[in-house]
């Protein structure tokens, strides 16, 4: 069976999804899977979140920190990137600081459509294009994108800005970014969801959005799928036990798991029907999900799905 979420030549993977679906965990597990398969991986988060602690680093910096063989991580804080940009224009630290501290300038800069996103992409592009001794420093850059609803500001910014800036160095940069993001050989967008009604609905809307921008997209990763613990023919026996024993903890546990699984399957079907692809599934982790063991379990699942395990 060919891998569902094929990662071959890609240089940039953008893990996206709504808040609380386990996006960061998936990004971390994917980074481990790729690094174990011999890729030199840079895992990146935008803003300050839990990617660092998940990968075993208290606090990520703006420059890549080496974590393990083949694995490095960094954070991009849009404010800092703006500072860098300003510094490169103004060349005076004091002036840059004054400007950054001014409310009005913040209003101006943050209101400029797509500018923060563009600055983030610019930093990513720098890492993707970095070379040492004739080969890329990072084979694969995995981004834990900011939580999205049904829109993708980070990925659609260049296209939106393109219409505005037609000439000059900015236009060249936009062109490079657009080509990178649209090229299935180089980029893959990985939406993550949980098998829950609201999350699935937003994921379906997200695919519509992705399609309208012609971005290369993977099948959805359905995270935290409750396991199937019982067979269909257990039902009759369970019902008998329930009528004899009432709310025995074992039976409560069984009923809860059966119901949660059945709800999840309904949502999986809805997702599959709407998108016409089979999702990648990651199991619900009952024990602490942010431990090395749990991460290793998810990482192994993703290694199978991506073909890294082969």
């Amino acid at each position: 069976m060919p891998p569902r979420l094929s990662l071959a030549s890609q240089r940039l993977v953008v893990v996206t999804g709504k808040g609380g679906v386990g996006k960061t965990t998936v990004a971390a597990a994917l980074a481990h899977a790729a690094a174990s398969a011999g890729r030199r991986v840079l895992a990146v988060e935008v803003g300050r979140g839990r990617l660092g602690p998940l990968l075993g680093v208290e606090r990520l910096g703006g420059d890549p920190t080496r974590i393990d063989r083949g694995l490095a991580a960094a954070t991009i804080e849009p404010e800092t990137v703006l500072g860098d940009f300003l510094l490169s224009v103004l060349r005076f630290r004091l002036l840059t600081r004054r400007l950054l501290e001014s409310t009005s300038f913040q209003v101006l800069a943050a209101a400029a459509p797509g500018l923060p996103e563009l600055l983030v992409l610019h930093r990513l592009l720098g890492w993707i294009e970095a070379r040492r001794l004739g080969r890329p420093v990072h084979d694969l850059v995995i981004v834990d994108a900011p939580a999205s609803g049904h829109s993708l500001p980070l990925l659609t910014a260049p296209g939106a800005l393109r219409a505005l800036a037609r000439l000059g160095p900015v236009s060249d940069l936009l062109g490079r970014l657009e080509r990178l993001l649209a090229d299935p050989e180089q980029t893959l967008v990985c939406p993550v969801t949980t098998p829950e009604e609201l999350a699935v609905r937003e994921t379906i809307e997200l695919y519509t959005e992705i399609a309208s921008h012609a971005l290369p997209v993977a099948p959805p990763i359905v995270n935290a799928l409750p396991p199937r613990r019982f067979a269909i023919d257990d039902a009759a026996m369970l019902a008998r036990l329930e009528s004899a024993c009432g709310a025995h903890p074992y039976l409560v546990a069984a009923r809860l798991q059966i119901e949660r699984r059945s709800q999840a399957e309904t949502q999986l079907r809805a997702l599959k029907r709407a998108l016409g692809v089979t999702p990648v599934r990651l199991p619900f982790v009952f024990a602490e999900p942010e431990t090395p063991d749990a991460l290793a379990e998810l990482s192994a699942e993703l290694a199978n799905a991506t073909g890294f395990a082969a």
Partner: protein
Amino acid sequence: MSASPLADALEAKRVILCVGSGGVGKTTTAAALAVEAARRGRRTAVLTVDPAPRLKDALGLGTLDGKPRRVPLGGVGARGAHLDAFLLDVKRTFDELVLALASTQDQARRVLENRLYQNLSSTLAGTAEYMAVERVYRLAEEGGYDLLVVDTPPARHAVDFLDAPRRLANLLDSRAFAILKDPTSILPAAGSRVAHFLLASVLRGLERFTGIGLVREVSEFMGVIESLTAALRTRVGAVGDLLRGPGTMPLLVTAPEPRLVYETEVLVKGLAGIGLTVGGIVVNRALPRALFGSTAGDPGLPDGASGALATRLRRAYTDLRLLAARQEATLAPLVAAAGAPVVAEVPLLPMDPGSLSDLALVARYLFPDPTGETSPASELGC
């Protein structure tokens, strides 16, 4: 009969603000609280941000026209109870204000088409969030309701949402206006040719990126807003007073998941920064501790279970013991992060609540019968 703090709040408060991270059941909790308040005889309105489709239908909010819906509660044993549901559409409200306040149609159109306005009104300045909060205020003052239950956007945006009045006031601050009129005034050598030159080059850079005449569009936008300043400023003060006043209870809705500890810390700090203190915590998705907690004994297999089914039952039970242990370990830091007591626990339900009777069930967990007789989790057999 000693009522719970949550029951007291339902009785005495005018506004209950449900805050918390995404995906923890905030909207459901808000709706269940509102159903219960209405059932207890208070004229209630629930204002929700983004309900799941089934819940939206249950509340009669299937159409997005911004009009309130009377929720029929006869089916859940509360005939005559008054509950209205509103959808808080953050973007729309500000557009409506511009339309109402602009002196001519043309002026309104210019602002609504202003790209800067489009960005500002949905993101940075928080003006749109302000309008949603302002709607809460109007309903509290003039809606004729005893209680408003307000659902807010997910954690990170909740502070923006609630802080919108202050931020708008800041934006209207005269110094900011001065700067927008002469941006070089922020530079050390204000007024000098060097300052003008430097600023002009930065702005040119920004304008090249964005292709819009930032300065012109800002002035245009500010011009319109400025004409509304005095009225807005008064209103902003009153809205702040309502949110921070004794009649409002910020209620943290959360779940015992590790990721939420950090998010809760950030949220509570943000809320404190705008003068709001969480009054209580509702914990959703908690496994019943009486059945699976660390102090509950393993009752062993139920009589009559054998073979493969016995193995599966044991596995299913062990799973939940593990989950319960993880939840217990998370709860203490979560409560510490929130700095408020747990006022109710709603267990992990087989399916996400989506109907009015589901909401009534959630309400039974939020307000357990003090006698314990009808507490949904108290039946234990074998």
